[in-house]
Protein backbone atom coordinates (compact mmCIF):
# COMPACT_ATOMS: atom_id res chain seq x y z
CA UNK A 1 0.00 0.00 0.00
CA UNK A 2 2.90 2.30 0.79
CA UNK A 3 4.33 1.65 -2.65
CA UNK A 4 1.00 2.33 -4.29
CA UNK A 5 0.69 5.55 -2.38
CA UNK A 6 4.18 6.59 -3.41
CA UNK A 7 3.39 5.81 -7.02
CA UNK A 8 0.26 7.86 -6.74
CA UNK A 9 2.09 10.77 -5.18
CA UNK A 10 4.69 10.67 -7.92
CA UNK A 11 2.11 10.64 -10.66
CA UNK A 12 -0.17 13.17 -8.99
CA UNK A 13 1.51 16.33 -10.28
CA UNK A 14 1.33 15.22 -13.88
CA UNK A 15 -2.21 13.95 -13.53
CA UNK A 16 -4.61 16.12 -15.17
CA UNK A 17 -7.38 17.64 -13.22
CA UNK A 18 -10.98 17.72 -14.36
CA UNK A 19 -11.70 21.21 -13.15
CA UNK A 20 -8.69 22.57 -14.96
CA UNK A 21 -9.68 20.79 -18.10
CA UNK A 22 -12.38 23.10 -19.39
CA UNK A 23 -12.78 26.51 -17.91
CA UNK A 24 -10.83 27.61 -14.88
CA UNK A 25 -13.98 27.09 -12.86
CA UNK A 26 -12.92 27.58 -9.26
CA UNK A 27 -16.03 25.87 -7.90
CA UNK A 28 -16.05 22.88 -5.60
CA UNK A 29 -14.67 19.75 -7.22
CA UNK A 30 -17.77 18.07 -5.78
CA UNK A 31 -19.92 19.95 -8.27
CA UNK A 32 -17.95 18.85 -11.32
CA UNK A 33 -20.53 16.71 -13.06
CA UNK A 34 -17.97 15.33 -15.52
CA UNK A 35 -16.42 13.23 -12.74
CA UNK A 36 -19.71 11.66 -11.67
CA UNK A 37 -19.85 8.71 -14.12
CA UNK A 38 -16.34 7.62 -13.20
CA UNK A 39 -16.99 7.94 -9.45
CA UNK A 40 -20.27 6.04 -9.70
CA UNK A 41 -18.76 3.37 -11.93
CA UNK A 42 -15.85 2.66 -9.59
CA UNK A 43 -18.05 2.94 -6.53
CA UNK A 44 -20.35 0.28 -7.94
CA UNK A 45 -17.41 -1.98 -8.75
CA UNK A 46 -15.58 -1.62 -5.43
CA UNK A 47 -18.67 -1.75 -3.30
CA UNK A 48 -20.04 -4.77 -5.17
CA UNK A 49 -16.75 -6.55 -4.60
CA UNK A 50 -16.83 -5.61 -0.94
CA UNK A 51 -20.44 -6.78 -0.66
CA UNK A 52 -19.60 -10.12 -2.29
CA UNK A 53 -16.55 -10.51 -0.07
CA UNK A 54 -18.60 -9.80 3.04
CA UNK A 55 -21.55 -11.92 1.98
CA UNK A 56 -19.65 -14.96 0.74
CA UNK A 57 -16.52 -14.96 2.87
CA UNK A 58 -16.55 -12.82 5.99
CA UNK A 59 -20.02 -13.29 7.38
CA UNK A 60 -20.25 -17.10 7.04
CA UNK A 61 -16.82 -17.61 8.56
CA UNK A 62 -17.14 -15.03 11.31
CA UNK A 63 -20.65 -16.21 12.09
CA UNK A 64 -19.45 -19.81 12.29
CA UNK A 65 -16.54 -18.88 14.56
CA UNK A 66 -18.72 -16.83 16.87
CA UNK A 67 -21.38 -19.54 16.89
CA UNK A 68 -18.74 -22.16 17.64
CA UNK A 69 -17.39 -20.12 20.51
CA UNK A 70 -20.87 -19.54 21.89
CA UNK A 71 -21.55 -23.29 21.70
CA UNK A 72 -18.26 -24.07 23.38
CA UNK A 73 -18.92 -21.57 26.15
CA UNK A 74 -22.44 -22.82 26.74
CA UNK A 75 -21.17 -26.42 26.70
CA UNK A 76 -18.49 -25.53 29.21
CA UNK A 77 -21.04 -23.80 31.38
CA UNK A 78 -23.28 -26.86 31.15
CA UNK A 79 -20.39 -29.13 32.11
CA UNK A 80 -19.53 -26.88 35.02
CA UNK A 81 -23.17 -26.89 36.12
CA UNK A 82 -23.30 -30.67 35.94
CA UNK A 83 -20.08 -31.02 37.92
CA UNK A 84 -21.39 -28.54 40.42
CA UNK A 85 -24.61 -30.49 40.96
CA UNK A 86 -22.58 -33.67 41.22
CA UNK A 87 -20.33 -32.11 43.84
CA UNK A 88 -23.34 -30.80 45.73
CA UNK A 89 -24.89 -34.27 45.66
CA UNK A 90 -21.69 -35.80 47.00
CA UNK A 91 -21.50 -33.17 49.71
CA UNK A 92 -25.12 -33.85 50.61
CA UNK A 93 -24.48 -37.59 50.76
CA UNK A 94 -21.40 -37.00 52.86
CA UNK A 95 -23.37 -34.78 55.23
CA UNK A 96 -26.09 -37.39 55.48
CA UNK A 97 -23.57 -40.10 56.19
CA UNK A 98 -21.88 -37.94 58.75
CA UNK A 99 -25.21 -37.22 60.40
CA UNK A 100 -26.23 -40.89 60.49
CA UNK A 101 -22.79 -41.92 61.75
CA UNK A 102 -22.88 -39.39 64.53
CA UNK A 103 -26.41 -40.44 65.40
CA UNK A 104 -25.30 -44.04 65.47
CA UNK A 105 -22.34 -43.25 67.67
CA UNK A 106 -24.59 -41.23 69.96
CA UNK A 107 -26.90 -44.17 70.23
CA UNK A 108 -24.02 -46.47 70.99
CA UNK A 109 -22.79 -44.07 73.65
CA UNK A 110 -26.20 -43.73 75.31
CA UNK A 111 -26.80 -47.45 75.09
CA UNK A 112 -23.48 -48.33 76.62
CA UNK A 113 -23.92 -45.65 79.26
CA UNK A 114 -27.30 -47.08 80.11
CA UNK A 115 -25.94 -50.61 80.18
CA UNK A 116 -23.14 -49.50 82.41
CA UNK A 117 -25.50 -47.69 84.76
CA UNK A 118 -27.79 -50.70 84.85
CA UNK A 119 -24.93 -52.98 85.60
CA UNK A 120 -23.74 -50.63 88.32
CA UNK A 121 -27.22 -50.48 89.77
CA UNK A 122 -27.56 -54.25 89.93
CA UNK A 123 -24.10 -54.57 91.44
CA UNK A 124 -24.98 -51.96 94.02
CA UNK A 125 -28.23 -53.73 94.85
CA UNK A 126 -26.54 -57.09 95.11
CA UNK A 127 -23.89 -55.64 97.35
CA UNK A 128 -26.44 -53.93 99.50
CA UNK A 129 -28.40 -57.13 99.85
CA UNK A 130 -25.29 -59.03 100.71
CA UNK A 131 -24.26 -56.39 103.22
CA UNK A 132 -27.73 -56.27 104.71
CA UNK A 133 -27.92 -60.02 105.06
CA UNK A 134 -24.46 -60.05 106.58
CA UNK A 135 -25.50 -57.33 109.00
CA UNK A 136 -28.69 -59.08 110.01
CA UNK A 137 -26.85 -62.39 110.33
CA UNK A 138 -24.24 -60.81 112.50
CA UNK A 139 -26.91 -59.06 114.52
CA UNK A 140 -28.70 -62.36 114.99
CA UNK A 141 -25.42 -64.00 116.00
CA UNK A 142 -24.70 -61.16 118.44
CA UNK A 143 -28.16 -61.43 119.89
CA UNK A 144 -27.85 -65.17 120.28
CA UNK A 145 -24.45 -64.68 121.86
CA UNK A 146 -25.92 -62.10 124.18
CA UNK A 147 -28.74 -64.41 125.19
CA UNK A 148 -26.31 -67.21 125.71
CA UNK A 149 -23.98 -64.95 127.70
CA UNK A 150 -26.86 -63.72 129.82
CA UNK A 151 -27.87 -67.27 130.66
CA UNK A 152 -24.29 -68.20 131.30
CA UNK A 153 -23.84 -65.16 133.54
CA UNK A 154 -27.00 -65.99 135.37
CA UNK A 155 -26.01 -69.57 135.75
CA UNK A 156 -22.58 -68.50 136.90
CA UNK A 157 -24.15 -66.01 139.30
CA UNK A 158 -26.48 -68.71 140.49
CA UNK A 159 -23.65 -71.08 141.10
CA UNK A 160 -21.64 -68.40 142.83
CA UNK A 161 -24.58 -67.33 144.97
CA UNK A 162 -25.23 -70.97 145.83
CA UNK A 163 -21.64 -71.48 146.76
CA UNK A 164 -21.46 -68.32 148.87
CA UNK A 165 -24.72 -69.02 150.54
CA UNK A 166 -23.83 -72.67 151.23
CA UNK A 167 -20.74 -71.52 152.98
CA UNK A 168 -22.61 -69.37 155.43
CA UNK A 169 -25.86 -71.27 155.87
CA UNK A 170 -26.94 -74.87 155.79
CA UNK A 171 -30.07 -74.23 153.99
CA UNK A 172 -29.32 -74.01 150.37
CA UNK A 173 -31.94 -71.91 148.55
CA UNK A 174 -33.45 -73.39 145.47
CA UNK A 175 -32.72 -72.00 142.08
CA UNK A 176 -36.13 -70.43 141.79
CA UNK A 177 -35.66 -68.51 144.99
CA UNK A 178 -32.35 -67.16 143.87
CA UNK A 179 -33.70 -66.23 140.52
CA UNK A 180 -36.51 -64.38 142.16
CA UNK A 181 -34.06 -62.41 144.25
CA UNK A 182 -31.80 -61.68 141.34
CA UNK A 183 -34.59 -60.22 139.33
Amino acid at each position, binding site marked *: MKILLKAFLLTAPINFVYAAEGQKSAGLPQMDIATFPSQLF*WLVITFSLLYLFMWKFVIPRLGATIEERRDKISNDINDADNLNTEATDILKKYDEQMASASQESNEIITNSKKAMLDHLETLKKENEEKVNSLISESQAKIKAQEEKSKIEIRNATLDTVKAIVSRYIENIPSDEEINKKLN
Partner: protein
Amino acid sequence: MAADNPIDPIHQFEISKIADIQLGGIDISFTNSSLFMVFALAATMALFVIGLSKKSIIPNRMQMLSELSYNFIANMLRDQVGDQGRAYFPFIFSLFMFIFFCNFIGLIPYTFTVTSHLIVTFAFAGLIFIAVTIIGFVKNGLGYLRIFYPSGIPIFLAPLIVPIEIISYLSKPISLSVRLCANMLAGHSILKIFAGFIVMLGFLGFAPLVFLVVLYALETLIAALQAYIFTILTCIYLNDALHPDH
Protein backbone atom coordinates in the same frame (compact mmCIF):
# COMPACT_ATOMS: atom_id res chain seq x y z
CA MET B 1 -4.97 28.70 -10.03
CA ALA B 2 -6.61 26.26 -7.68
CA ALA B 3 -4.19 23.47 -8.54
CA ASP B 4 -1.15 25.69 -8.15
CA ASN B 5 -1.78 26.91 -4.63
CA PRO B 6 -0.51 24.27 -2.16
CA ILE B 7 -2.50 25.78 0.71
CA ASP B 8 -5.77 25.77 -1.16
CA PRO B 9 -8.05 23.76 1.17
CA ILE B 10 -10.21 22.62 -1.72
CA HIS B 11 -7.30 21.20 -3.69
CA GLN B 12 -7.44 17.93 -1.76
CA PHE B 13 -10.92 17.21 -3.10
CA GLU B 14 -9.97 17.52 -6.73
CA ILE B 15 -10.30 14.45 -8.84
CA SER B 16 -7.47 13.64 -11.19
CA LYS B 17 -7.25 10.88 -13.72
CA ILE B 18 -4.78 8.07 -13.25
CA ALA B 19 -5.87 5.99 -16.22
CA ASP B 20 -8.09 7.41 -18.93
CA ILE B 21 -10.91 4.98 -19.70
CA GLN B 22 -13.78 5.78 -22.04
CA LEU B 23 -16.70 3.43 -22.43
CA GLY B 24 -19.26 4.22 -25.09
CA GLY B 25 -18.53 7.90 -24.88
CA ILE B 26 -18.82 7.91 -21.10
CA ASP B 27 -15.76 8.86 -19.09
CA ILE B 28 -15.15 6.14 -16.52
CA SER B 29 -11.49 6.90 -15.96
CA PHE B 30 -9.67 5.38 -13.04
CA THR B 31 -9.10 8.41 -10.85
CA ASN B 32 -7.62 9.11 -7.43
CA SER B 33 -11.15 8.70 -6.08
CA SER B 34 -11.33 5.23 -7.62
CA LEU B 35 -7.90 4.44 -6.21
CA PHE B 36 -8.98 5.26 -2.69
CA MET B 37 -12.17 3.29 -3.13
CA VAL B 38 -9.90 0.38 -3.97
CA PHE B 39 -7.81 1.19 -0.91
CA ALA B 40 -10.90 1.13 1.30
CA LEU B 41 -11.87 -2.21 -0.25
CA ALA B 42 -8.34 -3.52 0.23
CA ALA B 43 -8.18 -2.32 3.84
CA THR B 44 -11.46 -4.04 4.66
CA MET B 45 -10.36 -7.20 2.91
CA ALA B 46 -6.99 -7.11 4.68
CA LEU B 47 -8.67 -6.71 8.05
CA PHE B 48 -10.89 -9.71 7.52
CA VAL B 49 -8.46 -11.91 5.64
CA ILE B 50 -5.85 -11.48 8.36
CA GLY B 51 -8.46 -11.57 11.08
CA LEU B 52 -9.96 -14.78 9.77
CA SER B 53 -6.74 -16.45 8.65
CA LYS B 54 -6.70 -18.70 11.66
CA LYS B 55 -10.01 -19.07 13.32
CA SER B 56 -9.56 -19.86 16.93
CA ILE B 57 -11.83 -20.07 19.92
CA ILE B 58 -9.65 -17.59 21.76
CA PRO B 59 -9.15 -14.80 19.20
CA ASN B 60 -5.94 -12.93 18.54
CA ARG B 61 -5.96 -9.16 18.06
CA MET B 62 -6.89 -9.05 14.39
CA GLN B 63 -9.57 -11.68 14.85
CA MET B 64 -10.83 -9.72 17.83
CA LEU B 65 -11.03 -6.60 15.68
CA SER B 66 -12.97 -8.31 12.92
CA GLU B 67 -15.29 -9.96 15.42
CA LEU B 68 -15.83 -6.70 17.28
CA SER B 69 -16.84 -4.92 14.09
CA TYR B 70 -19.08 -7.86 13.16
CA ASN B 71 -20.77 -7.89 16.56
CA PHE B 72 -21.03 -4.10 16.60
CA ILE B 73 -23.00 -3.99 13.36
CA ALA B 74 -24.92 -7.19 14.12
CA ASN B 75 -26.07 -5.77 17.47
CA MET B 76 -26.94 -2.44 15.88
CA LEU B 77 -29.06 -4.18 13.27
CA ARG B 78 -30.72 -6.45 15.85
CA ASP B 79 -31.50 -3.55 18.19
CA GLN B 80 -32.89 -1.33 15.44
CA VAL B 81 -34.60 -3.78 13.15
CA GLY B 82 -34.88 -7.09 14.98
CA ASP B 83 -34.50 -10.54 13.51
CA GLN B 84 -36.12 -9.54 10.22
CA GLY B 85 -33.09 -7.39 9.49
CA ARG B 86 -30.80 -10.41 9.29
CA ALA B 87 -31.18 -10.62 5.51
CA TYR B 88 -29.77 -7.11 5.08
CA PHE B 89 -26.78 -7.69 7.33
CA PRO B 90 -24.21 -8.18 4.52
CA PHE B 91 -25.21 -4.86 3.01
CA ILE B 92 -25.23 -2.95 6.30
CA PHE B 93 -21.91 -4.47 7.31
CA SER B 94 -20.30 -3.69 3.95
CA LEU B 95 -21.73 -0.17 4.07
CA PHE B 96 -20.27 0.51 7.49
CA MET B 97 -16.85 -0.93 6.72
CA PHE B 98 -16.61 0.91 3.40
CA ILE B 99 -17.59 4.32 4.78
CA PHE B 100 -15.47 3.74 7.89
CA PHE B 101 -12.34 2.99 5.89
CA CYS B 102 -13.01 5.74 3.34
CA ASN B 103 -13.32 8.25 6.19
CA PHE B 104 -10.23 6.97 7.98
CA ILE B 105 -7.98 6.66 4.96
CA GLY B 106 -9.01 10.22 4.11
CA LEU B 107 -7.51 11.40 7.39
CA ILE B 108 -4.02 10.44 6.28
CA PRO B 109 -2.30 13.49 4.80
CA TYR B 110 -2.05 13.62 0.97
CA THR B 111 -4.83 11.11 0.60
CA PHE B 112 -8.22 11.54 -0.93
CA THR B 113 -11.51 11.22 0.95
CA VAL B 114 -13.96 9.29 -1.19
CA THR B 115 -16.88 10.16 1.09
CA SER B 116 -16.23 13.90 0.78
CA HIS B 117 -17.86 13.79 -2.62
CA LEU B 118 -21.59 14.27 -2.57
CA ILE B 119 -22.13 12.00 -5.55
CA VAL B 120 -20.66 9.04 -3.65
CA THR B 121 -22.66 9.57 -0.47
CA PHE B 122 -25.72 10.37 -2.53
CA ALA B 123 -25.27 7.14 -4.48
CA PHE B 124 -25.39 5.25 -1.18
CA ALA B 125 -28.25 7.31 0.21
CA GLY B 126 -30.23 7.04 -3.02
CA LEU B 127 -29.67 3.30 -3.21
CA ILE B 128 -30.79 2.96 0.42
CA PHE B 129 -33.80 5.20 -0.17
CA ILE B 130 -34.94 3.25 -3.24
CA ALA B 131 -34.26 -0.11 -1.61
CA VAL B 132 -36.08 0.85 1.59
CA THR B 133 -39.07 2.11 -0.37
CA ILE B 134 -39.23 -1.08 -2.42
CA ILE B 135 -38.83 -3.25 0.71
CA GLY B 136 -41.56 -1.22 2.41
CA PHE B 137 -44.06 -1.76 -0.38
CA VAL B 138 -43.12 -5.41 -0.89
CA LYS B 139 -43.45 -6.27 2.80
CA ASN B 140 -46.51 -4.16 3.59
CA GLY B 141 -48.24 -3.55 0.26
CA LEU B 142 -50.12 -0.29 0.22
CA GLY B 143 -50.12 -0.43 4.04
CA TYR B 144 -46.67 1.09 3.78
CA LEU B 145 -48.36 4.42 3.07
CA ARG B 146 -49.29 4.48 6.76
CA ILE B 147 -45.86 5.90 7.52
CA PHE B 148 -47.14 9.19 6.07
CA TYR B 149 -50.02 9.24 8.55
CA PRO B 150 -48.85 8.18 12.01
CA SER B 151 -51.51 6.54 14.15
CA GLY B 152 -53.09 8.61 16.91
CA ILE B 153 -53.17 11.83 14.88
CA PRO B 154 -56.61 13.49 14.64
CA ILE B 155 -58.06 13.35 11.14
CA PHE B 156 -58.29 17.14 10.80
CA LEU B 157 -54.52 17.36 11.16
CA ALA B 158 -54.02 14.95 8.25
CA PRO B 159 -53.79 17.68 5.56
CA LEU B 160 -50.97 19.21 7.57
CA ILE B 161 -49.19 16.07 8.77
CA VAL B 162 -49.24 14.02 5.59
CA PRO B 163 -47.40 16.57 3.39
CA ILE B 164 -44.86 17.12 6.16
CA GLU B 165 -44.29 13.39 6.47
CA ILE B 166 -43.96 13.02 2.70
CA ILE B 167 -41.44 15.85 2.52
CA SER B 168 -39.46 14.44 5.45
CA TYR B 169 -39.50 11.00 3.82
CA LEU B 170 -38.28 12.37 0.50
CA SER B 171 -35.59 14.45 2.16
CA LYS B 172 -34.11 11.44 3.94
CA PRO B 173 -31.61 10.57 1.15
CA ILE B 174 -30.58 14.21 0.88
CA SER B 175 -30.00 14.66 4.61
CA LEU B 176 -28.27 11.29 4.83
CA SER B 177 -25.85 12.02 2.00
CA VAL B 178 -25.24 15.69 2.78
CA ARG B 179 -24.54 14.94 6.45
CA LEU B 180 -21.69 12.57 5.68
CA CYS B 181 -20.29 14.54 2.76
CA ALA B 182 -20.44 17.92 4.52
CA ASN B 183 -18.79 16.52 7.65
CA MET B 184 -15.92 15.15 5.63
CA LEU B 185 -15.63 18.22 3.42
CA ALA B 186 -15.73 20.72 6.28
CA GLY B 187 -13.45 18.73 8.58
CA HIS B 188 -10.79 18.15 5.96
CA SER B 189 -10.96 21.75 4.75
CA ILE B 190 -10.43 23.08 8.26
CA LEU B 191 -7.54 20.67 8.80
CA LYS B 192 -5.95 21.90 5.60
CA ILE B 193 -6.51 25.57 6.46
CA PHE B 194 -4.87 25.19 9.85
CA ALA B 195 -2.04 23.17 8.35
CA GLY B 196 -1.55 26.15 6.01
CA PHE B 197 -1.45 28.52 8.99
CA ILE B 198 1.40 26.51 10.47
CA VAL B 199 3.43 27.02 7.32
CA MET B 200 2.55 30.70 7.02
CA LEU B 201 3.26 31.61 10.64
CA GLY B 202 6.74 30.16 10.67
CA PHE B 203 8.00 29.56 14.20
CA LEU B 204 4.75 30.94 15.62
CA GLY B 205 3.09 28.01 13.92
CA PHE B 206 3.07 25.92 17.07
CA ALA B 207 -0.23 27.54 18.12
CA PRO B 208 -2.18 26.31 15.08
CA LEU B 209 -0.20 23.07 15.37
CA VAL B 210 -1.63 22.44 18.84
CA PHE B 211 -5.05 23.29 17.53
CA LEU B 212 -4.49 21.03 14.54
CA VAL B 213 -3.63 18.08 16.78
CA VAL B 214 -6.80 18.59 18.79
CA LEU B 215 -8.81 19.05 15.63
CA TYR B 216 -7.29 15.94 14.14
CA ALA B 217 -8.43 13.94 17.17
CA LEU B 218 -11.88 15.41 16.72
CA GLU B 219 -11.85 14.54 13.02
CA THR B 220 -10.84 10.98 13.89
CA LEU B 221 -13.86 10.81 16.15
CA ILE B 222 -16.06 12.30 13.45
CA ALA B 223 -14.76 9.82 10.85
CA ALA B 224 -15.92 6.93 13.02
CA LEU B 225 -19.04 8.69 14.21
CA GLN B 226 -20.26 9.60 10.74
CA ALA B 227 -19.80 6.04 9.54
CA TYR B 228 -21.80 4.93 12.57
CA ILE B 229 -24.51 7.56 12.02
CA PHE B 230 -24.85 6.70 8.35
CA THR B 231 -25.21 3.02 9.19
CA ILE B 232 -27.59 3.41 12.10
CA LEU B 233 -29.83 5.75 10.08
CA THR B 234 -29.91 3.13 7.35
CA CYS B 235 -31.01 0.62 9.99
CA ILE B 236 -33.70 3.00 11.23
CA TYR B 237 -35.03 3.57 7.70
CA LEU B 238 -35.00 -0.18 7.17
CA ASN B 239 -36.94 -0.64 10.38
CA ASP B 240 -39.49 1.91 9.21
CA ALA B 241 -39.90 -0.08 6.01
CA LEU B 242 -40.32 -3.39 7.83
CA HIS B 243 -42.53 -2.10 10.65
CA PRO B 244 -44.36 1.02 9.42
CA ASP B 245 -46.73 0.94 12.42
CA HIS B 246 -44.08 1.75 14.98
